[in-house]
């Protein structure tokens, strides 16, 4: 196996808390997001969406819209004449602009470009669409039944057993041992069914782009996205363009959380621009964001766990049914992999089903599949602890996975930090703080993989010795600061000598999307390697100047030094001195690194929360919240804490309030922030972050990803706290007041 990258060292910059370099632009309103730019001669785009959950599109008459003054282009699916041969891309195209059928309320059916926003929207009203309404299904359990309306036939994978609706597109199974034998050894076995609602990533910035595409196939796209290379490749694949002819620039991004790892409006804006011959700006409304993008999968789950009186888990099974929405591609396999990942189990089996329904295509959301996987497992473990009178932290510690554990999804773990998070939780004052009436304390563990992937970084040493770093991953949570810190650390220069920018797709090679908690790990790794490359060049330049062998030159504290007394007596050459004579020693100095960063380290967290349940109204108040998570190495602890706090807050929303509500007519009833209630400032307490640092062997500084694991434990931690406060086990999310009240009344 490849050797470990990690080397222990003392850091000067990494691990400190400097001011972020893009801070001033963001507090003064200067930072430019997706909808903040214009172009000369620009048109405004708008999209017409299906009001039906499931309908055959009989005809679309655009003639009246086309005849309107100021309307410069109207497009439907018929304008997308290029047919992508990849089935995944064909689904993306159909989702961006419906073909034969509208598959969900909000599915795009036509689009307009006009000289003003108002004319564009008026033109949408003038488009006549004839629909043949079809039977629909928006519930995952209903959609699995053999007689359910079928969204699209022929999409089942070979792994789906017979007897299920064609809506069930895949099944995956994980585990080892014999759970049935395990249950027979248990003193208590609990089996329960759970549901979780679909939730939206809820980024505050709606999708927005500005597209220019000429008849020659050359184009430019400004877009808010988690991955502008993905946008380029996908749009080129959908429109039959050469990727190299389409330059995509990532705007500042106003949140993504997985929801901006896909395309929706970008191919439409490019097509409108090509047809109109002018730049087109297309911005989604919040209503469109809710109806047509995101959300995460809703789920229906059965979990069964057996435990001995001493807390040992003897057997465990889980079946996850996840709603994919209108196209195949939910992530039930990730649920099946993640649910029991924190535990060292002899007998475990999980199964995941992915099911199509008449809802928007499910999108990735922070640790996709893992929160709904942990929720039922951690709930049943908590109930077993209650009934067997066991300490929930001690019991988790007793069963916790460690280095050498064969994980529930197969591989044997290297060094991991789960036990450290549990021990930190045990010794934290939160654990022993007193609770009042109607209050309960919940704990839960969570697991996530973290990712690497294709990554390119270029590091330029400028003539004055300052450093320009170009990377290709949109900065959502402060990653430019982290990259500058790692570059400065490696080069041995002050942080203010390095500026990091996000380059467009024409300036660097392929970069994987900002997802999977990969950026600080993978882009950080490439940044360190690019700095090392530049250092090698600078050592050569110093060696040439001194007339000695490059191997006889050392680099530290931002300067080249003779390696030892035998190398010769030369005063050190600083980066500024080397840069100043670069033209004399061979030309400009730049380091770069291109890599598919494989081998990311997994990560674990334990969350602890106190809640109070109002017995009159069923309302849940979160009183205190503490996050214990392994970060590997925290490069900028402020922003690591921010990831912990933000993930916990999103989890709190998922647990207590957030929910896609569909009517009998298959239409989304709450496509706005008034009725889809994300946590507001007055809903939350301070969220205390406790950072643990168990180095990841796969990164030079020991970095693991931190962005996603923090949303995995909250659903269960809060459900456990509420269930203990209410004295009744809650098994359905969100735990909104009506649900909690019904549970209280039902006891």
């Amino acid at each position: 196996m490849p050797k470990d990258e990690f080397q222990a060292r003392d850091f000067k910059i990494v691990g400190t808390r400097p001011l972020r370099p893009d801070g001033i632009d963001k507090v003064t309103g200067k930072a430019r997001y997706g909808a903040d730019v214009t172009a000369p001669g620009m048109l405004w785009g708008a999209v017409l969406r299906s009001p039906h959950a499931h309908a055959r599109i009989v005809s679309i008459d655009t003639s009246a819209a086309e005849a309107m003054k100021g309307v410069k282009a109207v497009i439907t699916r018929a304008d997308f004449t290029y047919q992508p041969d990849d089935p995944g891309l064909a689904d993306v195209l159909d989702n961006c602009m419906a073909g034969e059928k509208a598959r969900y309320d909000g599915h795009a059916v036509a689009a307009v470009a006009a000289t003003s926003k108002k004319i564009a929207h008026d033109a949408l009203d003038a488009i006549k669409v004839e629909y043949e309404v079809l039977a629909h299904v928006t519930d995952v359990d209903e959609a699995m039944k053999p007689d359910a309306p079928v969204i699209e036939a022929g999409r089942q994978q070979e792994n789906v057993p017979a007897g299920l609706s064609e809506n069930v597109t895949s099944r995956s199974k994980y585990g080892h041992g014999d759970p049935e034998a395990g249950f027979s050894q248990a003193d208590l076995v609990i089996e329960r069914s759970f549901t979780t609602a679909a939730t939206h990533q809820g980024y505050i910035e709606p999708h927005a782009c500005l597209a220019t595409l000429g008849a020659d196939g050359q184009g430019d796209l400004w877009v808010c996205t988690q991955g502008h290379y993905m946008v380029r490749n996908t749009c080129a694949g959908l429109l039959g363009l050469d990727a190299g002819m389409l330059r995509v620039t990532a705007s500042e991004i106003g949140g993504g959380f997985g929801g901006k790892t896909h395309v929706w409006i970008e191919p439409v804006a490019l097509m409108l621009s090509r047809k109109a011959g002018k730049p087109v700006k297309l911005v989604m409304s919040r209503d469109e964001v809710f109806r047509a993008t995101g959300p995460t999968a809703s789920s229906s789950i059965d979990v069964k766990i057996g435990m001995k009186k001493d807390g040992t888990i003897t057997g465990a099974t889980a079946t996850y049914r996840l709603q994919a929405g209108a196209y195949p591609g939910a992530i039930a396999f990730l649920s099946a992999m993640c649910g029991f990942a924190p535990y060292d189990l002899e007998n475990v089996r999980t199964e995941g089903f992915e099911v199509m329904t008449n809802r928007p295509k499910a999108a990735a959301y922070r640790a996709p599949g893992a929160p709904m996987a942990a929720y039922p497992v951690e709930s049943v473990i908590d109930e077993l602890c209650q009934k067997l009178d066991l300490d929930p932290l001690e019991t988790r510690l007793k069963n916790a996975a460690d280095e050498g554990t064969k994980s529930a999804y197969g591989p044997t773990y290297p060094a991991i930090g789960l036990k450290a998070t549990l021990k930190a939780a045990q010794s934290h004052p939160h654990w022993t703080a007193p609770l009042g009436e109607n209050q309960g304390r919940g704990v839960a563990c969570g697991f996530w993989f973290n990712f690497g992937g294709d990554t390119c970084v270029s590091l330029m040493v400028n003539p004055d010795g300052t450093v320009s770093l170009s990377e290709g991953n949109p900065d959502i949570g402060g990653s430019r600061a982290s990259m500058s810190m790692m570059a400065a650390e490696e080069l041995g220069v002050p942080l203010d000598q390095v500026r990091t920018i996000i380059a467009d797709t024409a300036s660097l090679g392929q970069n994987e999307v900002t997802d999977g908690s990969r950026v600080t790990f993978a882009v950080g790794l490439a940044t360190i390697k690019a700095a090392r490359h530049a250092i090698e060049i600078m050592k050569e330049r110093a060696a040439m100047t001194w007339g000695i062998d490059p191997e006889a030159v050392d680099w530290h504290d931002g300067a080249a030094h003779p390696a030892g007394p035998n190398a010769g007596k030369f005063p050190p050459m600083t980066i500024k001195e080397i840069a100043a004579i670069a033209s004399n020693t061979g030309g400009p100095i730049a380091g770069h690194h291109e890599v598919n960063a494989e081998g990311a380290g997994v990560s674990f967290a334990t969350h602890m929360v106190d809640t109070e349940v109002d017995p009159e109204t069923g309302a849940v108040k979160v009183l205190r919240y503490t996050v214990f998570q392994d970060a590997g190495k925290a490069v900028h602890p402020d922003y690591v804490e921010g990831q912990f706090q933000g993930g916990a807050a999103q989890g709190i929303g998922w647990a207590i309030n957030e929910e896609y509500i569909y009517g009998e007519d298959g239409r989304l009833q709450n496509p706005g922030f008034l009725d889809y209630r994300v946590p507001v400032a007055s809903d939350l307490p301070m969220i205390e972050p406790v950072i643990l640092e168990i180095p990841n062997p796969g990164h030079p500084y020991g970095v693991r990803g931190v962005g996603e694991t923090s949303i995995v434990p909250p659903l269960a931690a809060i459900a456990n706290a509420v269930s203990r406060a209410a004295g009744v086990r809650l098994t359905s999310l969100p735990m909104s007041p009506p649900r909690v009240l019904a549970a209280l009344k039902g006891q």
Partner: protein
Amino acid sequence: MVAVRLWGSLAELADGQQTVEIEAANLRQLLDGLARDYPALKPQLERGVSVSIDGKIYNDTWATPIEKNSEVVLLNRLVGG
């Protein structure tokens, strides 16, 4: 030969074998060998898999070395948010 563990639903397609032996010294040889010796796995291999080698997860790098005694586990292709 390298012992490769399959996940449950993949094992069902390999006549119920949870572990199969493949002659491979790197990731590419492993994936090619699996497709050759177990054609029923081909649809999933084409959709994509991740491979855990001694506890670290790899997706694409063909040259990733695999030792005879390495622990090799096939996983569904991972995705993130």
